[in-house]
Each structure stands twice: as structure tokens, then as C-alpha cells.
């Protein structure tokens, strides 16, 4: 009786597996050719120097939402103030912090309270005080009542003076040239409304004066697996989607936006755990509905460093939040699914995210069950089962290696040959427990979507960007 449905389901699984992996492969090829080869040549050091010397840049407001970031905030702000860019302001928004975040900022940057005639383009929770630094004229600090990360970003946006703004997490660190490289794209393309940069794990690196001075592979396998995950996400996935003008995610850790476009679309959505993805999807929707030419891009160049979770509990919470955020956003914009009005976004990108991202944990769990049951009942031969599982593992390793391979071409790559071997081994070991662990958490998150709407959860960090390094509570970016 169950033979026919099981056969069909097995076939669906096979096609699902083949389709997903071939899409990844396509993105990998496209990413390499369209982005790395071109970017490596067009955005050379010489051309960047020309840009600076001749004042061809657009000034940027850097928005840093902070909630209870006493450990890392001073180091982060210092690294931002040291960026190589001629005209920018840093706006730190303390979102009702309950720790010493404000006190540390006031002390470190000689902040003086001053009234501020800001625009009220976007409604936000009340602002308590606005401060300006006496030592750094381009630093503004806002102390406001708690309203969430999106609300803090909106408050910063109300104060931003420049045509472009960068949303940067308070626990992340930007490469010295990151803003310059990202703004260059806005100079070249008037239709560009947002650019997402590459995020790389900071764990294992040596940081001095807010800069990564030496890169080394983290010691724990848990962190090494995440190095691979970030490489897969940024060097293949985002690059591919960007090439097809269907990029749906710009990491909250670092993205550069055209201020007027974001204001036109209504700013960041308050009450979601995925304000970064939600904004990007809304920007697409907004401009497609208006019929106005626009572009949203990923660039492999501007690099932001972030500390990835070092323990399973934090990792679980992070992935749970990411997956809920993805589901929340897709559900909120469900009218885009297979809607030809939204072009390739509605017909390809959004369906992909529904089928291969949001529903993937359910498919994967059911796949494990079916193959297990099939093998146990004799419906599927054990030999076939083993071969198929092995194929899935090898194919996954192949994709991981291709993504990690792109990293080899970066001048700031993991320098030791041993690190490259570790990445090869990590691509194999991650299939033994790590992936299944994450699949289970994402399955749980799928079920929790209606019950935990907008809940972030505490994150435990080591504080690599900080002056000192005790425990802190921060939110981690989505890769």
C-alpha cells in the first residue's frame, strides 16, 4: 500500500537533492566568473586611490545599533572611526541598554550632551538624549528607549546626514577599505539602492587597534564548520543571486544602503528578527511595484569580520532565530510567491527560498526517516542507501571546497597550508552530527515561527573586538 507514495517521495527527494546541488553549483560558477574575476581587476588599489584623490565618493553615515554592548562597543567604534574614508559619520544608537554601554562611550569619546534638530522621517521609541563627541567630530551617540534593533536603526536613519548609510553590528569590525569599496559601486550605478558585503568569521584572528593583523584557523571544530558555512553563503550563494539580480539577503552585520530609497520603502520593520532580509525583500517589492529601475548587489570585496558562536547553545539560538526570521519574512511577503508581477524574483528567488531554504529542514528530516525506514523494511536496498548517503556527503564536501577555494584567492586568506587541510577535513566532519544538529534546530524553529515572533534570544560572545574580553550579550549576524 505504501510502496507507490514512498517511491514518489523518494523520487521527489532525489530531484530535490539534485536540483539544490546543481543550483549551488551554478551559483558557484557564476559567482567566480562574474564577481571575483571582474572585481579583482576593476577594483584595484590604484583605482581606489584615484577615487580618493579625486573626491569621487559618496559620504556615508554608519549606523551602529547597540544593546548592552559594554564589552565590545568602545573597540568597535574605535575601529569604525579609523576607517580609510574621507567623509563619514558614525551614529551609535544605544537601544535602551541596561549595562554600562552609555557610560563607556561617554568616557571613551568625551561625549557632551547636546540638543539635536533631527528629522522625524520614521517613527521610533522616544530619544532620551543625543551626544556629540568632543574628540571625534564625526561621532554622534543617541541614547533612546528600547524598541529593538530595527527601531534603533530607524532612529539612526532619522539623524543620518549623508546620502548613503551603512548598517553595522556593534560587535563587528570592518576592513579599513570596506566602505570605500562598497561606495564605489554607488558611484558607478545610480540605480543601486543596496549593497551587501562579505562577512568572515573573526574567531582565531589576531586583532590590533580594531584591525585584523593576522588570520588563523579557529581551534574548535564548531568554529571551523562555521568558517565553511560563511564561505558557502557568501562566496557562492550571494554572488550567484546577485548576478541574477535576485539577491534577497544582505547581512545585518554590514550592508550599505541609499538613504532615500530606504526611507521611501518605510525604513526597517520593527518587531521582526530578520529586519535585514525583510528590508531587502521590501525594497525589491517597492521598486518592482513602482516599475522604477533599481539594483541590489552583493560584492565579494568589502569585508566585515564578526565573531561566530563558540558554544552549541549560542549557535542553536542563533540558527533558530535566523530560520524564524527567514520564515517570518517569507510569510509576510507570501504574495510574491510565484507571482509573475515580481519577475524572476517572484518566479525563481522567492520560490527557491521557500522550497530550498525555509522547508529544507523538514525535507531533510523526512529524507533521513524515509531512507532509514526504507532500508529497515527492505523497500530500499541497504547498499543503495549507503551509496546515496555517501554521494550526498561527497557532493556537500565538493560544494564546501569550491566555496572555501574562493577564499584562497583573497590576499587575506588563511595563510598556512595546514589551515587549507583543516578546511578539507572540516567539510567531511561537518556531516557527522553538526549538520544534523542544525537541521533539527531549524526544524524546531519552523514549528516555533508562530509562537516566538520577534524574539531574539541572548547570544554569548567572547568579545574579540573588545578591549577586554569577558562575556557579553549581543546579536549575531546572519551569513
Amino acid at each position, binding site marked *: 500500500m505504501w510502496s507507490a507514495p514512498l*517511491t514518489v517521495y523518494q523520487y521527489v527527494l532525489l530531484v530535490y537533492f*539534485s536540483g539544490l546541488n*546543481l543550483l549551488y553549483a551554478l551559483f558557484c560558477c557564476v559567482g567566480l566568473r562574474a564577481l571575483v574575476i*571582474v572585481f579583482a581587476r576593476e577594483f584595484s588599489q590604484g583605482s581606489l586611490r*584615484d577615487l580618493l584623490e579625486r573626491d569621487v565618493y559618496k559620504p556615508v553615515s554608519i549606523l551602529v545599533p547597540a544593546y548592552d554592548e559594554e564589552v565590545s562597543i568602545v573597540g568597535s567604534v574605535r575601529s569604525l572611526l579609523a576607517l580609510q574614508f574621507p567623509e563619514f559619520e558614525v551614529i551609535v544608537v544605544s537601544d535602551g541598554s541596561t549595562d554600562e554601554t552609555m557610560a563607556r562611550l561617554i568616557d571613551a569619546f568625551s561625549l557632551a550632551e*547636546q540638543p539635536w534638530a533631527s528629522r522625524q522621517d520614521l517613527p521610533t521609541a522616544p530619544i532620551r538624549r543625543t551626544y556629540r563627541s568632543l574628540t571625534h567630530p564625526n561621532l554622534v551617540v543617541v541614547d533612546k528607549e528600547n524598541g529593538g534593533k530595527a527601531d534603533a536603526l530607524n532612529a539612526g536613519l532619522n539623524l543620518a546626514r549623508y546620502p548613503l548609510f551603512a548598517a553595522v553590528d556593534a560587535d563587528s569590525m570592518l576592513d579599513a577599505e570596506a566602505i570605500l569599496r562598497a561606495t564605489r559601486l554607488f558611484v558607478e550605478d545610480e540605480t543601486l539602492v543596496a549593497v551587501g558585503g562579505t562577512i568572515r568569521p573573526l574567531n582565531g584572528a589576531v586583532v590590533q587597534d580594531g584591525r585584523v593583523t593576522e588570520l588563523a584557523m579557529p581551534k574548535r571544530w564548531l568554529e571551523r564548520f562555521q568558517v565553511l558555512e560563511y564561505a558557502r553563503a557568501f562566496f557562492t550563494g550571494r554572488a550567484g543571486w546577485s548576478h541574477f539580480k535576485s539577491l534577497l539577503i544582505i547581512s545585518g552585520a554590514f550592508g550599505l544602503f541609499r538613504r532615500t530609497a530606504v526611507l521611501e520603502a518605510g525604513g526597517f520593520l520593527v518587531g521582526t528578527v530578520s529586519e535585514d532580509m525583510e528590508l531587502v525583500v521590501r525594497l525589491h517589492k517597492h521598486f518592482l511595484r513602482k516599475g522604477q529601475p533599481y539594483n541590489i548587489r552583493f560584492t565579494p570585496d568589502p569585508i566585515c569580520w564578526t565573531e561566530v558562536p563558540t558554544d552549541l547553545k549560542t549557535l542553536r539560538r542563533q540558527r533558530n532565530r535566523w530560520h524564524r526570521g527567514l520564515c517570518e519574512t517569507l510569510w509576510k511577503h507570501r504574495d510574491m510567491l510565484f507571482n509573475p508581477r515580481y519577475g524572476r524574483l517572484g518566479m525563481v528567488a522567492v520560490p527557491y527560498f521557500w522550497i530550498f531554504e525555509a522547508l529544507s529542514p523538514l525535507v531533510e528530516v523526512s529524507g533521513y526517516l524515509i531512507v532509514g525506514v526504507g532500508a529497515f523494511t527492505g523497500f530500499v536496498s541497504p547498499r543503495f542507501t549507503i*551509496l546515496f548517503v555517501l554521494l550526498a556527503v561527497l557532493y556537500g564536501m565538493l560544494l564546501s571546497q569550491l566555496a572555501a577555494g574562493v577564499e584562497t584567492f583573497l*590576499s587575506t586568506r588563511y595563510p598556512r597550508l595546514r589551515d587549507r587541510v583543516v578546511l578539507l577535513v572540516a567539510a567531511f566532519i561537518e556531516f557527522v552530527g553538526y549538520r544534523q544538529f542544525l537541521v533539527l534546530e531549524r526544524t524546531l524553529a519552523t514549528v516555533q515561527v508562530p509562537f516566538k515572533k520577534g524574539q531574539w534570544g541572548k547570544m554569548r560572545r567572547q568579545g574579540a573586538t573588545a578591549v577586554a574580553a569577558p562575556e557579553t550579550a549581543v546579536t549575531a549576524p546572519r551569513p
Partner: protein
Amino acid sequence: MWRRYGDAVYTLVTFAVFGFETLALGALSISFLLGRTTGIADTPVEGILLATLTSTASALALLGFFLLAYHFTSTLRDRWHVEQLDTWTERWIALALEDTPAEQLAEGSTRRLPRAAVDAVLSLLEVVKSEEGDRLKAVLAGHGVDRLLLRHVRSGHLTARLDAIESLGKARLPQAFDALISLLKHPRPVVRRMAVRAAAGTLATMPPEPGPDGPGARFIEALKGTDIQSGVAQESLLLLETRAGAVLRDLLAQPDLGDRLRWVALETTGRLGLADMAGEVAGSTSHADPELRAAAFRALRRLGSVPEEAHGSLLEALRDEVDFVRVQASHAAAFLPSEVALPALEPGLEDESWWVRRATAASMARLGDDGVAAVRRAAETHPDQAAREMAVQILLEAGVLDPAAARLVKGVA
């Protein structure tokens, strides 16, 4: 930021691996479907699965080997290249300063210069100009580097083409100018962008040659006929350095100049601070396109002067229906005589746009003691709270008011 060798090979490896994997997975899916749903018992599903598995394992081994080998060799190569660059840079410097005869330069090497030698001289040529630069260029040409680069510019390989354009941009060889501007019609945007930058850099070093057939005129014609973004066109004009003034003057005088390029010319004139071109800019202050009106006022603000013929259009623009025109006009009004500017600016303090209020107050504060006094008066007594707040903020930013005093200003604290 990125290593530029091996990436094309890596892309090829990726294509090859996944081309084969696509076939294998496709065959597996079809054979599975045939075997299971049509009941064809002897479909070789397991055989195909095994073959797919073997090919994937082989691909993984190949890729792993490639990456390890690349990592190892590129580490050695990078180190060696840096050493070579240092050595060659020293030789080129000696040559540029005429300490070494050109024929001794490539001593011990073949007539064709090694890669490190070319890289070193190209880096030098970015900073060394005039006679020393010409001497280096002559040696490059003597070794056939110009011909090699020009051949690569026409290459079918994107990487080779982009590398050659970049090198020509650094070398600024006059003999490459026409080849570069011909690339402005290339279908690939990245080629057009890099070519226009390289052509502009080259033109900057070429001797002036007025007339319709001169390089400046040819550059303008190429710009008019190409599809590049305004930002890139602007960057190319800025790269013209000392030649920029003449080219911009010719460009603005073109009767058939499109709005986009006119906007670029106005922006560039302002950015370069070509004060003697204020008259040319003034002509666009009453243009029908608000973007162009705003660009003209922005340029005048940067030039630091508003010619008399533009006074009328500026005063009119302070009441323009488009807010960004009012913003730029308000900024430019700081260069009008204060007795004309102050009464015209003051209504802008209660403009509905925050940006106009800010530009107005900032301009007023720049109009000397009278202007600062007017802003201070607005901060204390203006009936509109938004105007008072903006006046206070501008006074704070100008350092005229300290934060403690600002809090005491009625209605703002």
C-alpha cells in the same frame, strides 16, 4: 585584495566538475524514475549511482589537490614576486634618473621583460611623470610591452583584456589612446568602465592638440557615444587632471550635449573648483531640468562664486517647487552679497523640508557677522520651533554656541 592568477583556471575546473556532475545526477534521476515508476527491473540505478559517486570523489580529490597546490605555489610565488618587484623597481628608478643606460636594464634576461619588471615600471609610471616618465615609456616600447598590451586588449579572454586595460591605464601610453577609446563601445560594461578611466589617464599626459581631430575632441565624442554611468563619466573627467578644464569647457559648449553628460560636466567643474568656469556653469542655473539646475547651483557653491548673470535665477530658485533645487540654491546663496542674500534666505528657515531649513541656516551663518546675528536672532525669537531648533544646531556646529548655552535657548532644550 584578490590574487589575480589561477582564478580563470579555477573557474574552468569548477565548470568542468559541475558540468560532469550535472550529467551524472541527471542520469541518476532518470534511471531511478524508470526503474521505480515504470517497473523496468533492469535499470542500472545502482551502477549509475556508483559511477556518480566515483566521479564526485574524483572531482573532490582533483579540487582538493588543486587548492592545496595553489595555496602552496601561490605562497612561494607571492614571496618571490615581491622580491623581484623590489629589485626591478630599483633598476627602473636608476634608469629614470639616467644613472643606468637603457640597454643594461634587462641584463641577464631575455629581450622580453619579465612580469615583475613590467609590474614594477607600471607602478612607477603612476607616480613618475614628465621626462623621467617618458624615458621609462620609451624603454617599455623598446621591449614591445606596448604592442603586447594592445594585443591583449583585443583578447577574447576577459581576464587578459581587463589586465591589459589596467596596465595601459597605468602606463598612459599615447599610442594606446585610440585603442582605449574604441573600447567605449564594447558590449561589456566593465570593459567600458575600465577603458574610459584608462583613456582619461592617458589623455591627461598627452600634449594639447586643439581642433576637432585632437585627442580631447575624440575623447568627448567617445564619451557622448558611450553608455556609461554618470559616476564613471565623472571619474574619467576628474582623471584628466590639468587637461580637465579645457575638455569641460568644450564639453559644456557642445550644442548637442545630453542632459546626463551636462550634469556630469557641471558636477566635475564644481569638484575641480575651476573658478574661471563660473560663467559657463551659470548658463545652466535656469535649465528646465531640476537635476541640472541643482547641479549648477551645487557647482557654483563649490566654485565659491555666483556670477551676476545668475543672481536672478538663484533668487528665483530659493522658491523653486523642487526641494533639492531649493537646498542647492540656499547653499549657493552664501556667495551673494549679504544684503541681497539674507532677506531672500530667511523665509527658508521655516521651509517644510528639513534639508532646506538646514541649508538656509548654514548659508546665513556663512554670511559674516550679519548672518550669524540673524541666525542667533532666529534661534531665540523665531516663531517657528523647527526654525529655532535648526538655528541652534547650526550655531552649535559653527562653534558659536556651546551645548550648555544651547539648552537654555527657549523652546529647544
